């Protein structure tokens, strides 16, 4: 039988093993590392830790304001639901207006009878239309969400309760610090493919999008003015990404992460610039209910949200008031 020199055989096997080790380390460093963190899969989908703002919990970040409206255990409490970005708002509403014990959080989720629920935008609109939630705190609905409501015979009532900046984000080490609206649209239509076309380094632009029906995706579709968006780029993961979200969500909700917001048309999306209207991409957010929901406490709560107390709470959480 043929024989191979032992040192040659060992060298070849070590070489093959080294190739696989290098390949796996590269995959991990370039990609796996970027998509894994310590949050649960459910929390990562929503990128929010529900316990951080859990009403009535010790150390909660939910804000409370002095309120002339105070529901009791005897009241029929409106069930609140909504977007991840607005969870701090409606958790704070519950903390300010609802009785302790009305919010039940067990096993990483809100219990069925809890007055606060968290389904995120995609399912919260459906929950309001179906009557499973009374008020959803969300950005404007998508065409599909309006169509679903119509299909179940529900007309949605959208009450604007605050304003927020729609922001574009990049890694904090990306030297680009601002873009024009036209350049941003150009990135998402595929017209700009490399950051060096926009004053940045020679790296592929990797435009990230959100799930259809999410609040930020619906706002982005409006921003694109009907232009078709690309959904990623071949080998984009080797380049440098750009994404979008809401200002408060980027600044306050996720843990310390190395991202920065871009100035748009020369204006940085600071809370002040959103409040004074100089930042160009400001959107309203809503308390959404069924138009035929005539529960007294739903109407009382909607009125309270537009009162000075309710508006103060929205501002105290970190958003801009509407009134």
């Amino acid at each position: 039988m043929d024989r191979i020199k032992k040192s040659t055989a060992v060298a070849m096997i070590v070489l093959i093993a080294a190739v696989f080790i290098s390949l796996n380390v590269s995959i991990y460093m370039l990609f796996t590392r970027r998509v894994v963190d310590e949050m649960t899969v459910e929390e990562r989908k929503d990128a929010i830790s529900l316990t951080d703002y859990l009403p009535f919990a010790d150390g909660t970040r939910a804000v409370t304001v002095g309120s002339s409206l105070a529901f009791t255990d005897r009241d029929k409490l409106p069930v609140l639901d909504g977007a991840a970005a607005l969870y701090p708002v409606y958790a704070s509403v519950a903390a300010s207006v609802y009785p302790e014990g009305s919010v039940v959080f067990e096993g990483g989720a809100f219990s069925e009878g809890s007055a606060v629920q968290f389904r995120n935008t995609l399912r919260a609109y459906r929950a309001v239309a179906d009557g499973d939630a009374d008020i959803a705190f969300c950005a404007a609905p998508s065409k599909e969400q309006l169509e679903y409501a119509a299909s179940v015979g529900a007309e949605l009532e959208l009450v604007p309760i605050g304003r927020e900046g729609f922001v574009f984000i990049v890694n904090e080490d990306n030297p680009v610090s601002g873009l024009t609206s036209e350049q941003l649209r150009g990135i998402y239509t595929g017209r700009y493919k490399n950051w060096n076309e926009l004053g940045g380094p020679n790296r592929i632009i990797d435009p990230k999008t959100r799930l259809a029906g999410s609040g930020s995706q619906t706002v982005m579709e409006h921003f694109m003015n009907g232009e078709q968006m690309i959904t990623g780029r071949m080998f984009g993961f080797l380049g440098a990404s750009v994404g979008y979200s809401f200002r408060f969500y980027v600044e306050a909700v996720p843990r310390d992460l190395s991202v920065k917001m871009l100035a748009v048309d020369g204006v940085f999306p600071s809370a002040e610039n959103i409040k004074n209207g100089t930042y160009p991409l400001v959107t309203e957010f809503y308390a959404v209910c069924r138009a035929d929901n005539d529960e007294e406490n739903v109407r009382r709560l909607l009125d309270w949200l537009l009162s000075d107390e309710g508006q103060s709470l929205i501002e105290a959480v970190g958003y801009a008031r509407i009134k």
Partner: protein
Amino acid sequence: MKERTFYILLSAVVALGVALTAALVIYTAYEYNNCSIITYIATELW
């Protein structure tokens, strides 16, 4: 070393490498589908 022994060892190393790489790719794809855009951008290599 016998050629047969060498090929058995080589096949084992390649099979192990392919299996580990495939598992990492599948795991990464699964996590990618559930990851936050903000986390993804924050962990970019610069």
